């Protein structure tokens, strides 16, 4: 018998392809070549990988997780735990679902050195000791050996492999807003979709398999006729979008329904995100395996698997079969097998207490032992012992399935389903195809009514589950979970050890935690726990079904990369001039143009220009702006004159520093506020929050204009010279008397009207910050560069600016402060006006000042000026405890020595105090506390 597996001595398998079948889905006119573990094989278009292998006579398709037992086809569909393959660089491919493609390199997973001779199968011998809880009870001592044990354990991982090369793939996403999503394209799903669409609803019909039809596809002539009729109705009905090879992977709040669609041209996978008014769940039923000794042998399969192989793929699943049947579908399998030329050696009718006790064989089925003690030689054992309703999508909608003992399955509880979710077809109950279609038709009409009519929920006809014997396990052992190699004995052992609820037993044994997600295993596991505890199945209950309904690739979930990024109008210039990019939130900014120290020197000695476009800018208009500023800033704003700018700091109501910036008064009721770059969005929302929720009576309009302006800071002793070349003194008089420090003007710069010019000094030099209507930003920048050539103008980046501001002792919010730094710890003593009636943060700042125990922000200079203590270096007390940290530090090109800022406890904060700084390399250096300002403490340079 050539197809009996699978020692190394086995003869080459021979073709098991049958003659033409009425419902076959393969195209015999063409062949598709592929390789199986390096060996060339072929199949037909329409074959799945597994059907092509089965047709080629391959029966052992993989090795199991723990014991490396040989496994073959069990369900012959997406769930089949025996048919997980590596295809090229793709792991865990569902071989009984994935269509065969030319050139596929298919290999079995986790076999060493080969599928047929697997050394790790020796684990099987140790199976008695590898029982449940094994890992928890061993390798405990000696402790130092555990890491070595762990390394060995990891080599046993049963799975495919990925490679570091991403390869080519295209994933995308699409939003959809159908009135009705129908999950499942069997007879009920098709009928529901047609009925809903006829009633005027837009419908998305989603089927996991490659064609619509469900179980009709592998049915008899009458079923096939019905299939053709239903497909024709779907095709003829406008308003239905059909997605095959697609799966509804979950149901989230307010019917937010992700659907993964494959087999679309040019797209690896697409995630359709549907916001549906109504979800109709119509997945049919899943055939449930039977647990008995030897139930995992290749050659043991479900009746639906045998019928799929015979009727869809024209593959003979064996040569001599035993069938255990408890239902009409099992009986139909007998007929199909006989029609396919399989010798049916015995039919065990479970309705008459006949059944399988054990399966025997090594590497494949050889004989079946019946409950009445017979031993029947066979290479195929087909079981039809019951059904599981895949209620996952309903559970995600809030439903809790209830156990129907007479039907031997959990069924949905219609009373717990939300109004926007309905169930149709086999998941609800049983019936003839006519009855299923009739119920689904009514569900479809009701779905449309709820989706488009908006009236209160109407009634939906039910379907009664048919009586079915309770068949879960023969009591002879066997595997309850083939993915995880969990045996029936493992479950009873877990219960005996006290892991006696389904959830605990699941976690202890890992039953249902494998890639089939418990769809095949959960009910059997529940039944085994119930049996072991002496409770009923209804009392035992089922585990929680969590999303996802079917495994989804990370690629499909991610879609195309979409990470927003912002650019200044001068970005093309920066790129052309060799700027090193710095990612700052959404912005890409120049960090420097090659030599930050030289850029600093240019600013101190000549003139530099920096692109500060990302600085947040809010246009504030209205009669109550001053009130708003008084509330949000810790300092006073009522007396700011037109044409003046002022620095301000905002705190939150817990007193923690939130943001800072300057605000200028451009007109009587018109202000321009600046914020930090990173705080732009936060501060805008903060301002709106106070305006809308606390003071809706104030008349203030806030408009974000951050990127309406290109912002350029022109800094250095020659900045006035440079700017004067681009302005007209009749329009903007730059002279010190006319345009003093902390003033603002509007006017024309480089021919661009409506510019805003601030004379401020973050760098400590004479400087102007010009805000140019953004479309002219590049023009203005290029003019500054051209006009300033003889003045030594030099663009500078963020790094030079950091050094310049540090030389001036300007703190950066969120660098020199942190998430708990209150105002008086940010050297704002002179700014905070506790005598104001109110401002955000006032009470906490008053109390902070009263306690007087807070850390202080100070200047710091190492005694050895050549040593720059890196930022985050800790300041230590003599007892080694932490007294503070360096928050900013750099080598100052201007002073030629190291400088810094530090947060430090108050007892060490006095200027002149010597402190110890621990460097990252472990050395300690002495440093002295200084004032904040390291260069030009009097500020003379910026007031010229």
């Amino acid at each position, binding site marked *: 018998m050539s197809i009996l597996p699978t020692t190394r001595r086995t003869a080459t398998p021979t073709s098991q392809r049958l003659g033409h079948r009425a419902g076959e889905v393969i195209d015999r006119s063409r062949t598709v070549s592929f390789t199986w573990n390096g060996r060339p094989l072929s199949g037909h278009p329409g074959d799945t990988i597994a059907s092509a292998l089965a047709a080629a006579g391959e029966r052992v398709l993989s090795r199991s997780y723990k014991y490396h037992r040989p496994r073959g086809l069990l369900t012959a569909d997406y769930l089949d735990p025996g048919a997980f393959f590596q295809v090229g660089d793709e*792991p*865990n491919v569902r071989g009984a679902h994935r269509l065969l493609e030319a050139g596929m390199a298919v290999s079995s997973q986790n076999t060493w050195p080969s599928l047929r001779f697997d050394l790790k199968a020796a684990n099987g011998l140790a199976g008695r000791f590898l029982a449940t809880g*094994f*890992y*928890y*009870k*061993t390798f405990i*001592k000696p*402790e130092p050996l*555990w*890491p070595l044990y762990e390394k060995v*354990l*990891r080599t046993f*991982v*049963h*799975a*495919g492999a*990925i490679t*570091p*090369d*991403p390869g080519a793939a295209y*994933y995308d996403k699409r939003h959809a807003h159908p009135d009705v999503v129908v999950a499942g394209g069997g007879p009920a799903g098709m009928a529901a979709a047609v009925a809903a669409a006829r009633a005027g609803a837009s419908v998305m019909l989603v089927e996991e398999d490659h064609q619509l039809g469900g179980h009709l596809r592998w049915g008899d002539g009458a079923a096939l006729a019905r299939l053709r009729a239903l497909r024709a109705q779907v095709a003829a009905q406008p308003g239905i979008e059909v997605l095959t090879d697609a799966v509804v992977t*979950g149901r*989230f*709040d307010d019917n*937010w329904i992700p659907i993964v669609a494959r087999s679309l041209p040019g797209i690896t996978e697409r995630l359709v995100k549907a916001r549906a008014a109504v979800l109709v769940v119509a997945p049919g039923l899943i055939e449930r395996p039977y647990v008995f000794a030897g139930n995992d042998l290749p050659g043991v399969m479900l009746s639906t698997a045998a019928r799929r192989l015979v009727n869809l793929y024209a593959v003979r699943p064996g040569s001599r079969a035993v069938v255990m049947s408890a239902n009409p579908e099992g009986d139909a399998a007998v007929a199909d097998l006989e029609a396919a030329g399989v010798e049916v050696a015995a039919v065990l009718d479970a309705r008459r207490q006949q059944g399988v006790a054990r399966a025997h064989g090594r590497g494949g089925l050889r004989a079946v032992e019946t409950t009445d003690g017979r031993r029947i030689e066979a290479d195929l054992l087909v079981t039809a012992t019951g059904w599981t309703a895949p209620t996952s999508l309903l559970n995600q909608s809030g439903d809790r399935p209830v156990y129907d003992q007479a039907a031997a399955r959990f069924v949905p509880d219609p009373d717990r389903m939300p109004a926007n979710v309905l169930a149709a077809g086999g998941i609800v109950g049983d019936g003839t195809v006519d009855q299923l279609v009739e119920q689904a038709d009514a569900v479809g009409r009701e779905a449309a009514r709820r989706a488009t009519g908006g009236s209160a929920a109407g009634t939906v006809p039910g379907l009664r589950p048919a009586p079915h014997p309770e068949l879960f396990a023969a009591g002879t052992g066997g595997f309850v979970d083939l993915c995880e190699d969990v045996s029936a004995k493992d479950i009873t*052992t877990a219960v*005996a*050890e*006290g892991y006696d*609820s389904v*959830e*605990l037993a699941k*976690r*202890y044994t890992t039953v249902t935690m494998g*890639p089939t*997600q418990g769809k095949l295993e959960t009910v059997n596991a529940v039944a085994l726990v119930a049996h072991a505890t002496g409770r009923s199945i209804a009392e035992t209950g089922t585990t929680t079904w969590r*999303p996802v309904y079917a495994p*989804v*690739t*990370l*690629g499909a*979930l*991610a879609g195309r990369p979409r*990470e927003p*990024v912002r650019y200044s109008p001068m970005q093309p210039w920066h790129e052309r001039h060799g700027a090193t990019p710095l*990612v700052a939130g959404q912005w890409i900014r120049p960090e420097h143009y090659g030599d930050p120290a030289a850029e600093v020197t240019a600013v101190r000695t000549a003139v530099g220009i920096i692109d500060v476009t990302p600085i947040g800018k809010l246009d504030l208009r209205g009669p109550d702006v001053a009130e708003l500023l008084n509330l949000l800033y810790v300092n006073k704003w009522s007396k700011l004159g037109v044409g003046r700018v002022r620095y301000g700091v905002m705190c939150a109501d817990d007193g923690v520093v939130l943001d800072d910036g300057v605000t200028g008064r451009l007109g009587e009721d018109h202000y321009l506020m600046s914020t930090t770059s990173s705080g732009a969005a936060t501060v805008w929302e903060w301002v709106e929050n106070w305006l809308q929720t606390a003071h809706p009576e104030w008349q203030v309009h806030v408009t974000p204009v951050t990127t309406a302006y290109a912002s350029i800071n022109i800094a250095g002793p020659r900045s006035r010279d440079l700017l004067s070349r681009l302005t007209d003194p009749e329009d903007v008089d730059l002279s010190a008397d006319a345009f003093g420090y902390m003033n603002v003007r509007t006017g024309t710069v480089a021919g661009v009207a409506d510019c805003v010019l601030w004379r401020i000094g973050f760098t400590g030099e004479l400087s102007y910050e010009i805000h140019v209507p953004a479309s002219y930003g590049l023009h203005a920048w290029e003019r500054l560069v051209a006009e300033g050539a003889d003045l030594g103008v030099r663009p500078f980046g963020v790094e030079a600016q950091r050094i310049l501001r540090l030389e001036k002792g300007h703190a950066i919010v969120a*660098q020199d402060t*942190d*998430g*708990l730094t209150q105002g008086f710890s940010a050297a704002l003593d002179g700014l905070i006006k506790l005598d104001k009636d109110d401002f955000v943060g006032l009470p*906490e700042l008053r109390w902070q000042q009263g306690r007087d125990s807070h850390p202080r922000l100070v200047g710091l200079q190492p005694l050895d000026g050549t040593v720059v203590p*890196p*930022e*985050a270096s*800790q300041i230590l007390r003599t007892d080694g405890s*932490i007294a503070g*940290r360096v928050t900013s530090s750099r080598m100052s090109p201007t002073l030629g020595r190291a400088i810094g800022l530090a947060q430090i406890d108050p007892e060490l904060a006095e200027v002149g105090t010597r402190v110890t700084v*621990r460097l*990252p390399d472990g050395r300690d250096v002495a440093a002295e506390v200084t004032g904040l300002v390291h260069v030009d403490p009097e500020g003379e340079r910026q007031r010229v």
Partner: protein
Amino acid sequence: MSGGNGNGRPEKLRGYSAWSLLRRGLTHEDWPRAWREHELRSSYDAVIIGGGVHGLATAYYLARDHGMRNIAVLEKAYVGGGGSGRNTAILRSNYLTPEGVRFYDRSVKLYEHLAADLNFNVMFSQRGHLTLAHNDASLRTMHWRTEVNKLQDVDSEVIGPDRIAELVPYLDVSDETRYPILGALYHPPGGIVRHDAVVWGYARGADVHGAHIHQQTEVTGIDVSGGRVTGVQTNRGRIATPVVLNATAGWSSLISDMAGVAMPVQTSPLQAAVTEPVRPFLDTVVVSGTLHVYVSQTDRGELVFGASVDPFASYSMRGSLEFTEGIAGHVLELMPALHRMRLLRQWSGLCDMTPDYSPIMGPTPVEGFYVDVGWGTYGFKAGPVSGEAMAACLATGKPPEIISSFGLDRFLSGRLVGEKGAAAVGH
């Protein structure tokens, strides 16, 4: 006092070993129950609400080290069914503040010997923990944490892209990415543990020392009289007790409300997900705060993902699509080759977030009512040390020094703990 110190193994906790496994394998003899079922007594010396790692560890140390054996742990569902069974099982001690570092370092030390201590292999895999920095600010925080860690003798260092690529070859460390990897905080003692095993090990240990574990026992009220606790009401009847510990997560403010004690917490779900297994390729735990993601690969080959808590108050554990979309997008930003891996399952646990990203531990204004709550997203890491500290607190009535910064009173006195600086995604 019975039992012994943290490293001593009590006589009764033997039983699991390769030899006993072999023997029972040959004889087919069943193992004894890991913990027993008991009648609910009408009074206990102390009642611990919450059968997660915190409650069970507290019971274990209370019974073992403080001789309090007439105690009960009440669990409304099954042990480890809350946050203890829903977290991503990452352990580390590379916190920001000295008090945080000291506390979590004690926890890691206890974890290192927990398997031997409990005679239950919790599979602590100290494979190293990488926190990636994608910008200056996070790199600066990594340096800050490193310096504080080193002063507490906790192994941490900031490493550059080349070292990172050696540790995790699948990471894209080029500067072509949207979020370039500038460096990472590397913490070799960090790793992952089998979370359920920790819960079961403590349950078994607490049981051996006499504590009663009552599953399916839900607290419905707390009796307070004259400013002190007198008992708890449950779905199985009233229990008189002078000492109650709220060791719940997700429902901590509701339980405290029963005693009339307000909690500064907001409850939000934390979501996690797991993929199908692939052969091992990721040896370290990888965290990116900027991208709100953390990843590790279990010994079973699955990738376990987590993110930050959902950005609003909720008691829903239904999970969301945007979580898996976000996780997948960010993981592929970091490791583009993973796009073919399939997400298998997602779940949520409830987290009680406090204003300063630090827990609330110790006594409350109601005498005899203690809390060990507000654990945000980092409670599992602290299970052993919290159990040890809360056991001491319950036994003596006073919080031990190691948790003195974490008292409830700090929110009214304005002395918040400084972990907020580093904690956005702190796994």
